[in-house]
């Protein structure tokens, strides 16, 4: 826990100052998780603010301060999931409006502005993005939390509210689908 239970209790009872302190303690970690879940740095803050906005209006429903972190992660997962679904719809309509050449020119222009390190990161991001785009948003989020964020099965159990066996099956299947996508050559 990055803050003590007392502060969460204060925030839960409507203390805006305490809520601000909770946000300040968790925002960096949550923004990092969101960045890796959605893969688009430009939208990370927006999604992060959506998470804390949802937290603000749902905090009074929290049973005890002990379950705060899984609760916050659940809100993060839901906000990322909503974003990815919206993005998918937007991307479909945007891509249909642009010709392939226009898309390539836009990519090249964006690439030219980046320095080498950023390009390397961009490449990895693109590679993982392309891979995760071949699986569902649910698989993408579950695998990112497990493999990239390094959350334990116990932590995932609390976030997803399912038992360990069900979670293992879901993870195994998701991993199999990603492996299959990884082995499949690009179209």
């Amino acid at each position, binding site marked *: 826990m990055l803050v003590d239970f007392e502060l969460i209790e204060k925030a839960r009872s409507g203390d805006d100052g305490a809520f*601000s302190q909770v*946000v*300040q303690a968790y*925002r*960096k*970690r949550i*923004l*990092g998780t969101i*960045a*890796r879940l959605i893969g688009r*740095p430009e939208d*990370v*803050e927006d999604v*992060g*603010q*959506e998470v*804390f*906005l949802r937290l*603000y*209006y749902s905090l009074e429903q929290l049973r005890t301060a002990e379950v705060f972190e899984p609760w916050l992660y659940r809100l993060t997962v839901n906000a990322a999931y909503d974003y990815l679904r919206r993005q998918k719809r937007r991307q479909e309509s945007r891509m249909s409006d642009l010709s392939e050449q226009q898309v390539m020119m836009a990519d090249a222009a964006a690439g030219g502005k980046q320095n080498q390190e950023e390009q*390397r*990161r961009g490449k*990895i*991001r693109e*590679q*993982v993005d392309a*891979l995760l785009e071949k699986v569902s948003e649910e698989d993408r989020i579950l695998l990112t939390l497990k*493999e*990239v*964020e*390094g959350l334990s099965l116990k932590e995932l159990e609390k976030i997803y509210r399912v038992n360990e066996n069900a979670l293992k099956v879901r993870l195994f299947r998701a991993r199999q689908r*990603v*492996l299959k996508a*990884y*082995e499949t050559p690009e179209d």
Partner: protein
Amino acid sequence: MERMDDDSTNSKLDALWLEYRNAFPDPEPSANFMPNLWQKIEARRVETTSVFRRLAQACVMATVAATLIIVVLIPRIQREPVYTATYVDILDAAHPMDAAQLLDSGDVQ
């Protein structure tokens, strides 16, 4: 052989996850993060309040309409009598001959 391929793909994938994790360190929030968040919280609060206000206004309008119906229309409907004659009068009007025959027969004293 296939098993070895699987293992190799698995480890390549694990390495890719790790690279992805390292390529995305936790970003520093911008200076506007907190002000923008509070703006959004306030905007949501105003939006929710205005929804409740509209709902309350609709309830008031519905109550006024119902009161008008009860006060004005119902008494007006009730003022118009449903029956214009008694049951005996209606029977009498429907069978005028019966009464005359009864009188003629002399049974009535």
